[in-house]
């Protein structure tokens, strides 16, 4: 016979103002199996907890129902109380009288009746509860960081500095990401590379960090604490141990007219190349798509000139298998490209460029060595127009969100232009100026007030070329929608920040969720911003949404702490709320018929085949088996199982049925 204790909480007045808590306790106290019931002002307080503990000890309770707030809030508290009093914590259930009753109903008889119902169903459920113990999973204390931009760099360094091993993979030949392309950074105008490159070098030299550049994630298996990642190390056609990074090959390579990715197509590179002078590692790769040897079968000049004989034309992609316990995804973002803006003539007119291209023009390491010159004829533009929200905040273009960083970098661009071209005139077309951030608004005001940038609130409908000038047709909405026409020498589009190409594919490899724009989804928009819905996989930087540098860095450090927290224990303790396939006596063994429809239905790849064998090792039956390390207890398999062979521990068919019946039956 069950001996159940019911503890009704007033939650100050949160519950008791609409629910008659005394009546709830008194009514429930009369039910079969209820040995003790009481109400109290704050059950979660120390005296409240003591009431529960002493009742368990004195009455010999076999089950506890706490009727209080949401289990999200205090279930761990009360389960701990039960455990301390010697009762299995999973014999404790919570009835949510606050969110599910008192907060959503008026004071009255019916509200109290509902509260009684809510408690009753759990009293009945608890009768079927079974003692459960938490699951221990070992943890591999190595982290995998995907993406070597500023977020990936920061996360790697932070994790490595806690004493744990890190494997950092970057798909490009060098780490550095978008930040390495930037000229100056807002709101301080300090040189981007000057603050970034020391970090890049630190990554390369850190004893705890293994860096694989030109590498991508091939596949991922496993679960929190126990991932198995396969990394494809793309062939660099180079023996990295022999290469000294002298760069002779890059100067002799005859294929010189390949648009440089680092310079956003504004400069050229060779087929064997180092993306930029400060690259880490500072060793070249051969771009096989453009290399004359790979396309035409002849050349091999780099091989001839290499003083150490490091070139390896026959080198193949290498697959490296690593075991890691946690993963930080920091794959960054991309900006919208030419074909997206026919109305602005992008792609047609050489002098209509993106913000990232402007960064390269303004950068001392860029194709013009920091002088702002037109891509078409190399002249210094006398009039320059900046367009905010090119693509962003435009539901018609399918990008309703704000790309967030553009308002700030436009102010920076205009400022850099004014600083470099004193006689020049700059115009900014904007929708709103979004300068939320420390010293951000001051920065924009400085552009407008000190540097004389002309801000025009309105949008641009069309850009066309006339007599070598770019005619920008816009409107000034602060002057009663007056049409504005500017004859510009150059136009810079603040193109929308979008998810990286391949983001969706990567998300599917990692089994993490993503939003409609293919940015990776955080587990909770406010309280779990760096976690994903998949245990052990965390997010950092602009792969989650457009982010500026300080935010990316902060997020990376946040993710690193989550990883370090995970690595702080040798074993991971997990809630035993997982699915279990039943086992029965021979000759049935299990009611599972082995159709394995649950395998394809499981979002977490948690179900595998189990072969039941006899003593001679012959397979008698194949049935489904749930991996307790992977199962998240979502219950999808339970719903699909036709034979009802799967139960979620703590939420079994029997418990659920009892709850429903307790609600439907008269008491």
């Amino acid at each position: 016979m069950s001996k159940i204790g019911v503890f009704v909480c007033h939650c100050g007045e949160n519950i008791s103002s609409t629910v008659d808590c005394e009546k709830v306790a008194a009514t429930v106290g009369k039910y079969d199996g209820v040995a003790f019931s009481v109400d109290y002002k704050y059950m979660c307080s120390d005296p409240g907890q003591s009431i529960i503990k002493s009742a368990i000890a004195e009455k010999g309770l076999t089950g506890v129902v706490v009727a209080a707030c949401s289990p999200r809030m205090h279930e761990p508290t009360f389960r701990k109380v039960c455990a301390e009093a010697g009762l299995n914590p999973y014999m404790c259930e919570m009835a949510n009288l606050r969110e599910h009753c008192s907060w959503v109903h008026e004071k009255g008889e019916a509200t109290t009746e509902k509260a009684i119902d809510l408690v009753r169903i759990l009293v009945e459920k608890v009768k079927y509860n079974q003692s459960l113990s938490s699951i221990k999973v070992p943890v591999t204390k190595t982290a995998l960081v995907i993406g070597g931009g500023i977020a990936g760099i920061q996360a790697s360094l932070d994790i490595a500095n806690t004493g744990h091993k890190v494997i950092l993979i970057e798909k490009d030949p060098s780490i550095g990401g978008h930040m390495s392309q930037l000229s100056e950074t807002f709101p301080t105008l300090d040189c981007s590379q000057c603050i970034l490159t020391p970090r890049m070098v630190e990554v390369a030299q850190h004893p705890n960090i293994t860096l694989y550049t030109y590498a991508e994630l091939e596949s991922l298996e496993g679960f929190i604490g126990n991932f198995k990642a396969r990394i494809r190390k793309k062939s660099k056609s180079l023996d990295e141990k022999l290469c000294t990074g002298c760069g002779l090959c890059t100067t002799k390579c005859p294929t010189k007219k390949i648009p440089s990715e680092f310079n956003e197509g504004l400069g050229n590179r060779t087929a064997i190349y180092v993306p930029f002078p400060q690259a880490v590692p500072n060793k070249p790769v051969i771009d096989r798509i453009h290399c004359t040897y790979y396309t035409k079968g002849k050349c091999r000049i780099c091989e001839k000139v290499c003083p150490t004989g490091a070139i390896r034309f026959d080198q193949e992609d290498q697959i490296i298998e690593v075991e890691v316990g946690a993963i930080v995804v920091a794959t960054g973002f991309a900006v919208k490209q030419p074909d997206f803006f026919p109305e602005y003539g992008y792609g047609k007119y050489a002098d209509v460029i993106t913000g990232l291209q402007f960064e390269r023009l303004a950068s001392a390491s860029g194709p013009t060595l920091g002088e702002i010159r037109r891509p078409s004829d190399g002249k210094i533009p006398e009039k320059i127009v900046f367009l905010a929200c090119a693509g962003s905040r435009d539901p018609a273009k399918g990008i309703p969100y704000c790309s967030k960083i553009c308002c700030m970098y436009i102010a920076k661009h205009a400022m850099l232009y004014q600083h470099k071209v004193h006689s020049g005139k700059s115009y900014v077309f904007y929708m709103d100026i979004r300068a939320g951030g420390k010293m951000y608004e001051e920065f924009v005001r400085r552009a407008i007030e000190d540097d004389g940038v002309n801000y025009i609130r309105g949008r641009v409908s069309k850009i066309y070329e006339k007599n070598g000038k770019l005619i920008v047709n816009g409107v000034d909405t602060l002057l009663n929608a007056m049409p504005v026409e500017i004859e510009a020498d150059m136009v810079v589009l603040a193109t929308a920040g979008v998810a990286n190409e391949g983001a969706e594919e990567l998300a599917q490899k990692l089994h993490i969720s993503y939003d409609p724009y293919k940015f990776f989804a955080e587990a909770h928009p406010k309280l779990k911003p760096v976690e994903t819905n998949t245990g052990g996989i965390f997010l950092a930087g602009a792969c989650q949404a457009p982010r500026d540098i300080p935010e990316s860095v902060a997020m990376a450090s946040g993710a690193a702490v989550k990883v370090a927290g995970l690595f702080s224990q040798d074993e991971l303790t997990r809630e035993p709320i997982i699915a279990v396939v039943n086992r029965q006596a021979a000759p049935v063994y299990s009611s599972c018929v082995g159709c394995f429809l649950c395998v394809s239905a499981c979002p977490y790849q948690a179900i595998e085949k189990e072969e039941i064998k006899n003593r001679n090792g012959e397979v008698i039956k194949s049935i489904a088996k749930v991996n307790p390390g992977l199962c998240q207890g979502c219950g999808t398999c339970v719903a699909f199982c036709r034979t009802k062979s799967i139960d979620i521990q703590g939420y079994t068919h029997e418990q659920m049925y009892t709850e429903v019946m307790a609600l439907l039956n008269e008491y």
Partner: protein
Amino acid sequence: MVDLIKRAKELIETSAVKVVIGYEQGTGNKTRALFVEKAEDAGKLIFDSRCVQNLAVYITKKEIKEKGKMAIAATLPVMRSIIQLASEFQVNDNNLLVLGITAESKLIEFANLVEVETFVHQYQIEIDVRNKEMLDKLGKMTQAERWKFWIDELAPCFKCYACRAACPMCYCHRCTVDFNQPQWIPVPSHELGNLEWHIMRAIHLTGRCIDCDACYNACPLSIPINLLTKKMLEDAKEHFGGYQPSLKGDHLMSTYKPDDKENFIH
């Protein structure tokens, strides 16, 4: 079916298979399943338009499986059932030889299940005209009318479970309705119990039912329960791009896809 008889005889004589499943003349004008285990019994095999029972129902039975490798005379619906069963790991090439019978009553012996699948995929599952009309008629009814239609139709059902016994997809050792701790689906054949049983059956067959009508043919009361599965087939076509059994195991209703068109699932 001279070819079939000859081949069955050979297969048994050479011990290539232990049993050949086919049809024989039953009582009256009826046909019934025949399990040929001795070469001399092969002569009893027949095939004509009366042979509509879905023989695939036997290949998952313990009693038949125990005999060893089997061959089966399979019409298109039977072949479809075999492919669906294979995708659910209930049969495989090692224990089954498919002797296909085409619409023109020609015998095709398939080397493996992949060949059977290729054959099956030449034909879409189409709902016949008479039943299509009935479905359209039901679709035009008001909710109340449709409810009454089904309550009335299902009222005489006394749960003999002949529909379940005739269905090749109902191979579970323990049916949902036999699960009694707790008893989610009521056993008695009252209004609610009947309704729940037939709805549950239709849901469990969605994305698995190959529309062979075995359930309807087996029903001693001729309740049009096959309309329920046909409706699910129509819905599958409308919402999920249609159903065709496939060895790939990309089950229509039970495959989690991160790129599902519904956002809530991500």
